[in-house]
């Protein structure tokens, strides 16, 4: 028997990239199931195309780069595929999903050198690319209908979209402020197929927290910032601004805060940095939602914060043990 001359430490925790990725995938199951429940076969179709697309492209790119294709098993491509799908309307045409997968794997990940080196969240790069390139398709949201497995769908605006339109047309957000908030909580509202149920996403997020795959710093600060800022505007003018509860339950906030902003590679490594990152994501989201051209700002906010992550890391380096701050001498 060969003895191994491995460097210390000889004990290692059982954590692996695989464990992390598959735990996140498990945490996404409730959100995906709710998506399937409300958007039926189309949801399944988009998810399948996206996941298979990402996997095939990942394998292809690895081969092309002359790499071993073992990273296919690490779960990261599947996760990117699922997250991309969850960020798309269930009516997205198949070819468009494939374009998304291509952008995610190629432009989002491998041009930088693959997993670990990408500065931006690949699924979000793809989603924003599609949103800018195909604005109409990307903002036609099928109406949620439990257990409809028919393939024709009626489109419906998202609550955030409707709010923005009302605001532009009439100067007031209108009835939308009074909708029953149980709908977005449970998932019965228009939106991307994986973002509609705050309940399911929070459940998944709590699971990740319990498994210590993520820490509270990013999701909590992200959500609280959105809540507090939209709350302030709402108190000032409830005619023009929706309630903070409405804001945290609608749109892609829960999906973004728990699953996209917490992406290891593209978020800061220090706790302090994560807090700054979460607050930044929240503030940008609110500004886009309330004052920007798009009704929703979660994706843009996260991508913008991704771009400043290296700077945040640089400035939130912990104080090394023994490097005491100079104490001011009181005369």
């Amino acid at each position: 028997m060969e003895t191994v001359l491995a460097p210390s430490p000889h004990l290692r925790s059982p954590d692996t990239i695989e464990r992390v990725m598959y735990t996140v995938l498990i945490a996404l199951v409730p959100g995906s199931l709710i998506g399937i429940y409300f958007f039926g076969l189309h949801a399944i179709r988009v998810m399948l195309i996206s996941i298979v697309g990402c996997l095939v492209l990942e394998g292809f790119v690895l081969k092309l780069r002359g790499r071993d294709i073992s990273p296919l098993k690490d779960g990261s491509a599947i996760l990117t595929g699922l997250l991309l799908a969850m960020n798309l309307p269930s009516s997205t045409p198949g070819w468009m999903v494939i374009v998304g997968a291509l952008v995610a794997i190629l432009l989002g990940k491998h041009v930088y050198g693959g997993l670990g080196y990408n500065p931006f969240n690949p699924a979000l790069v793809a989603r924003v690319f599609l949103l800018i390139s195909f604005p109409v398709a990307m903002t036609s949201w099928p109406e949620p209908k439990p257990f409809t497995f028919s393939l024709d769908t009626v489109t419906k605006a998202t609550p955030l979209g409707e709010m923005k339109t009302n605001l532009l047309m009439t100067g007031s957000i209108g009835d939308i402020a009074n909708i029953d908030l149980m709908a977005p909580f449970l998932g019965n509202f228009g939106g991307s197929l994986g973002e509609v149920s705050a309940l399911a996403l929070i459940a998944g997020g709590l699971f990740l927290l319990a498994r210590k795959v993520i820490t509270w710093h990013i999701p909590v600060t992200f959500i609280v910032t959105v809540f507090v800022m939209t709350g302030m505007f709402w108190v000032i003018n409830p005619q023009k601004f929706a309630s903070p509860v409405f804001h945290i339950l609608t749109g892609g906030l829960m999906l973004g805060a728990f699953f996209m902003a917490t992406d290891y590679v593209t978020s800061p490594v220090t706790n302090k940095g994560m807090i700054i990152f979460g607050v930044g994501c929240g503030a940008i989201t609110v500004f886009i939602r309330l004052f920007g051209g798009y009704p929703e700002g979660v994706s843009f906010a996260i991508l913008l914060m991704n771009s400043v992550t290296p700077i945040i890391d640089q400035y939130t380096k912990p104080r090394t043990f023994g490097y005491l701050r100079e104490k001011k001498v009181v005369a």
Partner: protein
Amino acid sequence: MKSQFRGGVHPADSKDTDKEAVKTLPLLELYLVSLSQHIGSPAEPIVSAGDKVLKYQEIAKPTGFISASLHAPTSGTVKAVEPSPHPSGRLIPAIVIESDGEDREFDISTNSDPNLEKGPEVWNDMVKNAGIVGMGGAAFPTHVKLSPPDDKPIELMIANGIECEPYLTADHRLMLESPELVAVGLRLTMEMVGAKKAIIGVEANKPDAIETFRSFDLPPDVEVAELPVMYPQGAEKQLIYALLGKEVPKGGLPMDVGVVVQNVGTLAAICEAVTKGKPLVERIMTLGGSVPAGPGNYLARIGTPLSDIVKQTGGMKGPAARIVSGGPMMGQAMTSFESPVLKGTSGLLVFGPGEMKALNQRACVRCGACVRVCPVSLMPQTLGNMVEWNIFDELEQNHINDCIECGCCAYVCPSDRNMVQFIRQGKAEIITRGQKI
């Protein structure tokens, strides 16, 4: 003021041998007393091939201030002074002693102070003459630590009974079986450094050891502190922080905050050196892991080939895939059992195939786990990446030299990055660069 030191990890403590009383290994035929037993310059042999030696006789002298002498572990003949196996994997000169089987002793009574009358100055010389070094693993010459300069007054002596490395139980057994040696050693060192107070620090997974000390009639200035289990609490600076909430300033020593820390094994050796004049020629070590047939705690003479320990304890139950000298977190992996026991060898661990995580080192995914666990508050992932990408210029700015190589960062890394190896490589590069200029 007690605090939790920052970071740290909780590996399963696997103290399977903590109920095994210390057994003495039989006298062997051959001992390899390595000249590099300690931090600092190696010892210089004062015997040569063919010389007859007695047990306890000095066989090598210290060279320079930070060094320690060596003594014969038994009586016999010096066979050679030649490059021999060493846990580091390199061949390092050792004094090879062939035992005559009689174990005749050199008269050590003249150099002792059984009634403790001679005073701290003399005791310090006795410690020096006994070749004592830190037995917790670092192997720093003890007399140096016990001679703080006059401008560093020492208030507190800490007896380190933490033994935070999983598997190791040698200090634990020593505290249970010979607590009086530790207590007397502590008393002596307190006087040597002029400390008014002392704390015996023990982790909560050794309640019987804590009980033992508490049941002693210790003077009121000696406190027994129970600390929660956390690796690497046994590291000096982390222990001081955990007990006092004080940070040893960068590049400094415990004496900079008025503290001296001594491992409990070292304290016992100090007691033996002063009261009986015994040089350090044996130590308790743990034989552990799943493979040895006779795991336990053994009193082994310094220089005992590890292969003999395995042989004398019933051999191995199966194939060895990983052989470690020391603990599983900071110990040195070896390819064979050829090397000998050193003064700092706290354990020999042998693991079978498939027991250790099969590492698949990949790029850092920036999960931040290493940053959270680093007890020194470094950014290990940055250091690892810099070394991997050959960016050596900023390593020092990122305080690489403050890394204590505890391995917490590598322990948690989901990308299985060999962080400690990267960091050692980085430190070595800094040294080579410094020499070029």
